[in-house]
């Protein structure tokens, strides 16, 4: 009897999960920051397990990467292609199209640009603009098939874009180990680009690719927030059925956004080939497609936020390379940390949208 009396209040209490209508933005920001810190702590724990001395973590990641002029330049350098793939992701996801083919589109962008250099099309002064056009056109063309298949036949674009990635990768290997291999040595690289085929450096060793990436971000911002196409995109994102019935050209809008996305991914491929490596290599694309998707997700498809997220991921890339050199930690660590960060940030959404409330059952 007494036991029952003790238990009753507990039994009468119930915790329920409620969907919140909205949350003040300072709270949202706080939860988001908290989840990012959580993600960084987990990542730190993984790094310590992998053999990085705990005391070195802060030094390695924050000071050496961000407060050293050369590393900072490396971060900005690394950021440009990441910004481009992030923007490409934003555009496609805004059209509710899961473009997982960013890597394939990058590969074909870089192949297009390299074709221009190998076949020496155009005068030296015209070479670089032609390469840019070729990269964008090739990236765009590699995204045509999945979007048309999705619009005409409802073929799942997640699988089709991924399959096209594997096809593109094998085609790249075919070129790199075959016809396009640099005859000078045994590596699976194309011959080096001429000096006028490289993206030039601006002052302070800052590559031209960074201003291009920022400019593209602004262009995408204009497209999604001001232009008519962006307005249509918002309709399509919210409800394709309603959009269709109020006269929005749904198919054309999706097509436009995805082709734009493919062109940007192609440009990202050019930035790595002509900006970083100075040639086409057999594995230049590794990790970018995946990072582009995560950047777009972290930024909630906002171009400006994507630029910031790309800078964060670029820091991770640069730090990851130095970890690889100094502690022999595989570059896969960068991938793992990105996934952990995204899981934490995505989980924060749950706390923003829900609250736990204690309900007293009727007495």
């Amino acid at each position: 009897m007494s036991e029952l009396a003790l238990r009753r209040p507990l039994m009468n209490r119930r915790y329920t999960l409620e969907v919140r209508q909205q949350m003040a933005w300072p709270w949202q920001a706080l939860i988001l920051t908290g989840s990012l810190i959580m993600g960084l702590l987990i990542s730190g724990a993984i790094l310590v397990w992998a053999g990085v001395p705990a005391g070195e973590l802060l030094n390695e990641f924050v000071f050496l990467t961000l407060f050293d002029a050369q590393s900072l330049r490396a971060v900005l350098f690394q950021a440009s292609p990441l910004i481009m793939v992030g923007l490409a992701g934003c555009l496609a996801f805004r059209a509710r199209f899961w473009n997982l083919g960013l890597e394939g589109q990058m590969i074909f962008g870089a192949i297009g640009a390299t074709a221009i250099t190998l076949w020496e099309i155009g005068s030296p002064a015209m070479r670089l603009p032609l390469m840019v056009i070729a990269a964008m056109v090739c990236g765009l063309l590699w995204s045509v098939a999945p979007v048309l298949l999705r619009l005409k036949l409802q073929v799942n674009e997640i699988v089709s874009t991924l399959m096209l990635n594997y096809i593109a990768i094998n085609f790249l290997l075919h070129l790199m180990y075959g016809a396009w291999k640099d005859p000078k040595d045994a590596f699976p690289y194309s011959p080096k680009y001429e000096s006028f085929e490289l993206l030039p450096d601006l002052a302070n060793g800052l590559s031209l690719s960074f201003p291009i990436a920022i400019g593209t971000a602004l262009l995408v911002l204009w497209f999604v927030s001001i232009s008519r196409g962006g307005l249509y995109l918002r309709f399509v994102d919210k409800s394709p059925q309603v959009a269709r019935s109020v006269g929005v050209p749904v198919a054309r809008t999706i097509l436009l956004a995805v082709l734009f996305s493919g062109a940007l991914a192609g440009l990202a491929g050019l930035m790595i080939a002509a900006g970083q490596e100075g040639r086409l290599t057999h594995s230049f694309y590794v990790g970018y497609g995946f990072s582009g998707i995560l950047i777009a997700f972290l930024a909630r498809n906002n171009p400006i936020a994507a630029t910031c997220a790309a800078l964060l991921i670029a820091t991770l890339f640069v730090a990851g390379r130095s970890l690889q050199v100094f502690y022999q930690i595989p570059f896969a660590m960068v991938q793992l940390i990105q996934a952990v960060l995204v899981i934490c940030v995505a989980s924060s959404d749950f706390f923003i949208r829900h609250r736990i409330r204690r309900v007293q059952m009727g007495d």
Partner: protein
Amino acid sequence: MDLITSWIGNIPEFAVPFALAALGLIITEKSGVLALGAEGLMLVGAVAGIGAYLTFEQNAIALIMAMMAASVVSLLFALMVLVMRINQVISGLVLVFFCQGLSTLVGTLMGWTNQPVPGLHAIALWPLSELPYVGRFFVQNIVVYLTPVIFLVTVWALYRSTPGLRLRAVGENPQASDAAGIPVLGYRLAAIVVGAALIGLAGAFISVLSTKLWIANMTGGRGWIAVALVIFARWSPWKALAGAVLFGCIEALIPQLAASGIKLSQYFVFMAPYAITLGVMIWVAASKRDTSSQPADLGTPFIREERT
């Protein structure tokens, strides 16, 4: 003729990973959870299987540990989609990325790369193994013979048992199931964990029994092909098995083509499975438009307090 005999003999080895992964996916997706993480869970199974073999030197332990490892990792996916209600496409993709990073990191740091393992010895199914041409088809390891049994048991459980009926009900209409007193999230959790175990087994089959060594990202998109296989098998286990055998035929052909000295770049041969997957997807989409066999609630999170 030698070529044909060895080709036919190799088919099961390539078909079994597709079949097991597709079956795991069907179990998960029948409960209404869109499972795109197969590629990642296969990688986890592959690395766990090799790791367990190198540690314990027992094939059975290796396979069981691989299944358990994939199930444990799938709990993370379950947390994301069932508790946190994160978009299931994003959750699946993040799971793949997470597993790619994790498996490469663990395998490389533990030094499991390129360590050969003996695998299982083949059992000849006499008198079938004496048949001309197709005889080698019936000289396989025990897991290959177990695969049809696993299929039979799963099909029986899905379509003939009460828990299976409830699982499918949860995938078709979670609100009604909830009202009928079926624990929706419980069934979805079970479906994710059981499905992941089969997908992990598929991964371990590749590393421990088929390739007999581990390298980073060794599944090479087979998990994604399994996802496609489930779509064009319209979530039917038997059709998925048939599709897996078809892809087994194609994959088994690749080394044969390389050996026969056909003047075709090997990279075009490597492209074949992906191109054929794409082709079959287009063909299926163009030929029939029925989506009726897809679990009706696939991909939508179940939120009880937002009951409609």
